[in-house]
């Protein structure tokens, strides 16, 4: 690639004013509701995550107060069960994931030299889904109907028979609502890291944090769908009686465990990786050197991303699975410690080759070393099957998980908060309080959890609320409870330290840690547009502020940033990004309405709410595309690049591919559910299929043919086939309706429930295909699709093919079931 030439310098203040006008948002409520800016949204995620951490922390104090004495006179059991379930659920879903999302959203565009994330409205939508979903869950806690089945919600305990109240539905619906936000963030992060880097920044030139976030986001795409599927199936079982987990009718409670842990194990690595990214970023700066082993660390991330999906059964070593299968997961669980060890020794090697300075972020990193390593070692112990048979479901596991989560996530996040607060706020530290907070947290933590390993080995199970018959557990529990309060004081002091910095701190100087990295090459606090021009290799912060990089200012009065080719970073086109809009908050609110209707059992109105969601979703396409030729944009002298609506491989297409990876994983999990239940669940085979194969074959054939026709029509250039495709898709829906009418009662047996669910999946996808075909038709009429402008056409085409493929697989599966039975 020929290096682009720098732009001539301009007046930095004038550029700032121009950019701030275009990228900023109005003050007050309207601005708050309509902001799509990644820095503001990233900060909101992190602040909200902190609030949820405090709530869940107070719940932990209630738990420790209850367990401090054996009689358990403080709380009654029903409330205790809600409290420990909420402690775990809030920490995992409403603190850890949003915290790392927020950090990634805030930092990535700055570190990569971009102005924003790939899909600003999606960022805002993710934030509102998190806020509304989290609010529903918190309100349930205040109303005394919080989930109470443990944070992993095992069936049959969480099924309607044994948990008749609304509590379990709050978890299933609320958590799924929040997860929409996580999948959205994952898509954004991948597309941003792959396509929105500074010109010429190859993948191997990226800051390590970008690699870690890329790995994390890929894991989220594949790790969240199993839980989403499981939650949807369990909610359908609870609401409508379709058996997926009910043994008597061909379901299996182990299916829930497999789906949950297929999510649950990668989840903890999703939590750990960004924290490791923070360490790989902060440690070298604290040691005044470069990180040792960039390539080895990237390879370690690759190893972790894949291997962590092969561990999940280690949460199920006591359910009766044969030893050989357990051994696979035991070996994999141990092997995953190797890439972790590679990183730890690379970090120590970095310290040895540099001059480490014990400043406050480094203190927190020492907290990490002294805690996470111990947690990792107890993790290897738990990976050993015979030992697991004793330690599973005891306080030993509670101790282990807090060692790895607090050691491996909370300490690095505290280091990150202290390190990047000057960038977030523009203020410098107030010395002293942070150090005291650190020592209180460290002492309190080890005091609480070290002895808890012994408590578990002495026979104390998890999740009990009283232990009157076991005097040998009194002293260890009392010690844990006392130190728990010390740790809580430490966290309160840490929060105080941050508040002092933001409220009373003096103006921070530029690049306070002398890191020299891109995120520090901008004013502090970071402006709405990050940098006045996009960096070419070797340019300084001053050059960028004067517009000497690419795409300086906002001369065309719209939000522009650069899109590059994924591997080598060659600039490809200019993306015009959306402005402030209320659409994300409105869409999240409509989905929230649907969730509430489902929660309170108003299923018919909920179906209407689905239509409302579709209508609101339709509004999003208004921003897409351009009705006339606008010509290329000059990004630097002699380099003209097309705008995004004039290219085939735009951000939307990359985003759709990522979304389909998540969708495809959900589909693969569904196929796994079918296979698992058919082979392993008791009470199979199912009763005879009612109408029989012959009657279903005709509508099934019609369905496949119409989808085939739609796929063929979608290939006609510039979506010429859109109107004909609408007819084909209408026929597909009619065929699906005929199939639905002929289905056996889904409440009869798991096989029938699975078929009905599969048909539902097909109908959903055909419905979306219909909307996309309609969109293409509308865009052809108004000129957004025309020679030189493809707009939504590639998106429709790819979605249509996906719908055809999945429908074909499902049809084949049902046909095979009928033939083989």
């Amino acid at each position, binding site marked *: 690639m020929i290096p682009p030439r720098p732009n001539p310098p301009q007046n930095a203040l004038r550029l700032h004013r121009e950019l701030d006008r275009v990228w900023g948002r109005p003050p007050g409520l309207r601005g708050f509701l309509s902001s799509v800016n990644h820095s503001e949204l990233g900060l909101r995620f992190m602040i909200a995550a902190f609030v949820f951490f405090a709530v869940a922390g107070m719940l932990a104090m209630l738990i420790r107060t209850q367990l401090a004495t054996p009689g358990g006179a403080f709380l009654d059991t029903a409330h205790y069960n809600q409290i420990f379930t909420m402690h775990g659920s809030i920490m995992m879903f409403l603190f850890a994931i949003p915290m790392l999302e927020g950090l990634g959203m805030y930092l990535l565009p700055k570190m990569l030299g971009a102005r924003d994330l790939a899909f600003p409205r999606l960022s805002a939508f993710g934030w509102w889904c998190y806020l509304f979903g989290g609010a529903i869950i918190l309100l349930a806690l205040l109303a005394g109907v919080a989930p109470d089945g443990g944070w992993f919600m095992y069936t049959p305990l969480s099924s309607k028979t044994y948990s008749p109240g609304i509590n379990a539905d709050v978890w299933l619906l609320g958590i799924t609502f929040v997860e929409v936000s996580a999948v959205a963030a994952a898509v954004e992060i991948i597309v941003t890291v792959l396509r929105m880097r500074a010109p010429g920044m190859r993948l191997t030139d990226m800051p390590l944090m970008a690699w870690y976030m890329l790995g994390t986001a890929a894991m989220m795409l594949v790790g969240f769908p199993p839980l989403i599927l499981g939650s949807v199936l369990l909610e359908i079982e609870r609401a409508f009686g379709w058996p997926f987990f009910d043994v008597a009718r061909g379901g299996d409670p182990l299916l829930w465990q497999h789906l949950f842990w297929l999510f649950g194990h990668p989840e903890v690595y999703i939590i750990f990786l960004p924290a490791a990214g923070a360490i790989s970023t902060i440690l070298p700066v604290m040691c005044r050197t470069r990180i040792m082993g960039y390539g080895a660390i990237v390879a370690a991330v690759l190893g972790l991303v894949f291997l962590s999906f092969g561990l999940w059964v280690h949460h199920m070593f006591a359910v009766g699975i044969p030893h050989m299968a357990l051994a696979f997961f035991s070996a994999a669980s141990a092997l995953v410690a*190797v890439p972790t060890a590679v990183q730890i020794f690379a970090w120590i090697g970095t310290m040895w080759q540099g001059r480490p300075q014990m400043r406050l972020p480094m203190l927190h990193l020492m907290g990490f070393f002294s805690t996470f390593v111990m947690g990792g070692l107890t993790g290897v112990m738990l990976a050993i099957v015979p030992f697991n048979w004793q330690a599973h479901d005891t306080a030993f596991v509670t101790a282990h998980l807090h060692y790895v989560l607090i050691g491996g996530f909370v300490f690095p996040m505290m280091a990150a908060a202290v390190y990047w607060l000057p960038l977030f706020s523009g203020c410098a530290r107030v010395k002293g309080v942070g150090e005291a907070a650190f020592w209180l947290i460290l002492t309190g933590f080890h005091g609480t959890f070290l002895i808890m390993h012994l408590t578990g080995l002495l026979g104390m199970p998890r999740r009990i609320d009283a232990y009157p018959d076991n005097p040998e557990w009194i002293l260890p529990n009392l010690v844990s409870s006392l130190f728990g309060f010390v740790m809580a004081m430490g966290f309160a002091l840490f929060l105080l330290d941050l508040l002092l910095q933001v409220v009373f701190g003096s103006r921070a100087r530029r690049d306070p840690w002398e890191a020299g990295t891109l995120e520090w090459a901008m004013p502090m606090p970071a402006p709405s547009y990050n940098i006045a021009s996009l960096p070419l290799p070797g340019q300084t912060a001053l050059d960028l502020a004067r517009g000497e990089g690419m795409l300086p200012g906002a001369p065309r009065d719209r939000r522009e940033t650069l899109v590059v080719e994924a591997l080598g970073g060659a600039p490809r086109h200019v993306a015009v990004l959306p402005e402030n809009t209320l659409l994300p908050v409105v869409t999240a609110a409509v989905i929230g309405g649907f969730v509430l209707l489902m929660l309170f059992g108003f299923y018919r109105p909920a179906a209407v709410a689905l239509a409302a969601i579709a209508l609101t979703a339709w509004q999003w396409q208004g921003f897409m595309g351009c009705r006339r030729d606008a010509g290329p944009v000059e990004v630097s002298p002699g380099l003209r690049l097309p705008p995004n609506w004039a290219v085939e491989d735009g951000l939307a297409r990359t985003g759709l591919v990522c979304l389909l990876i998540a969708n495809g994983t959900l589909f693969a999990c569904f196929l796994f559910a079918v296979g698992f239940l058919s082979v392993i669940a008791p009470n199979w085979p199912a009763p005879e299929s009612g109408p029989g194969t012959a009657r279903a074959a005709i509508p099934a054939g019609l369905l496949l043919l119409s989808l085939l026709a739609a796929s063929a029509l979608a290939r006609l250039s510039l979506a010429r086939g859109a109107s004909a495709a609408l007819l084909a898709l209408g026929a597909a829906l009619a065929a699906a309706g005929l199939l639905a009418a002929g289905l056996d009662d889904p409440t009869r047996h798991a096989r029938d429930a699975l078929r009905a669910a599969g048909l539902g999946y097909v109908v959903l996808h055909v419905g979306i295909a219909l909307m996309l075909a309609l969109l293409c038709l509308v865009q052809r009429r108004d000129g957004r699709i025309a020679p030189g402008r493809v707009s939504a056409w590639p998106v429709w085409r790819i979605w249509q093919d996906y719908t055809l493929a999945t429908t074909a697989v499902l049809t084949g599966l049902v046909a095979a079931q009928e033939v083989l039975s």
Partner: protein
Amino acid sequence: MSSLAPAGPAAAQIAVLWWAMLAGAVLITLMVLALVWRGFAAPPHPRPGESFWIHGMGLGFSLAVLAAVVGAGIWVGERLQARPDPEAIRVEAIARQWDWRFRQPGPDGRMVETRGRLHIPAGRPVDVVIRSEDVIHSFWVPRLAGKMDALPGRDNLLRIQADAPGLYHGTSAEFSGTGYAGMRFEVLVWPPDDPPDLTAEEAE
């Protein structure tokens, strides 16, 4: 109820495994902390490079340790498998919210049902067939063996053996709702020459 005070061969083997792993974990933790500390306090010249840290320690050291630990674990796991044994007695454990019922052979050979207390002979392998009538529970007697879940719709098998007569405590170890903490039971291990009179106890 301590798994560190084993009273049967399974628990004993697991306890040995635990102490060995604890010793290793303590040594490794101290080693890592010492290496970190040395980073601050004038590390040796010439500085070790990537080859030492990443290949030697990150890959070599960790793979060696893990191979040993996993190997030991798999070996013990295989030894704990319940292979066909003419000496073994079969009993049943039926779990439900929130108590345990047991069925064990009585003096005349017929199965007798008891509540909350399982009677087994000392020194002989006992195959416990575990099932649940409602939600998932778990059968666990820490001093004798590891745990095994009780699931609805399928039977799980756990082999336990007690070295000496006595009363051993057990508990369910899978959260099952509001009565979970109280879901305890006992295992009465009787001397081989003095079987209990179960028909009298059954009335409890």
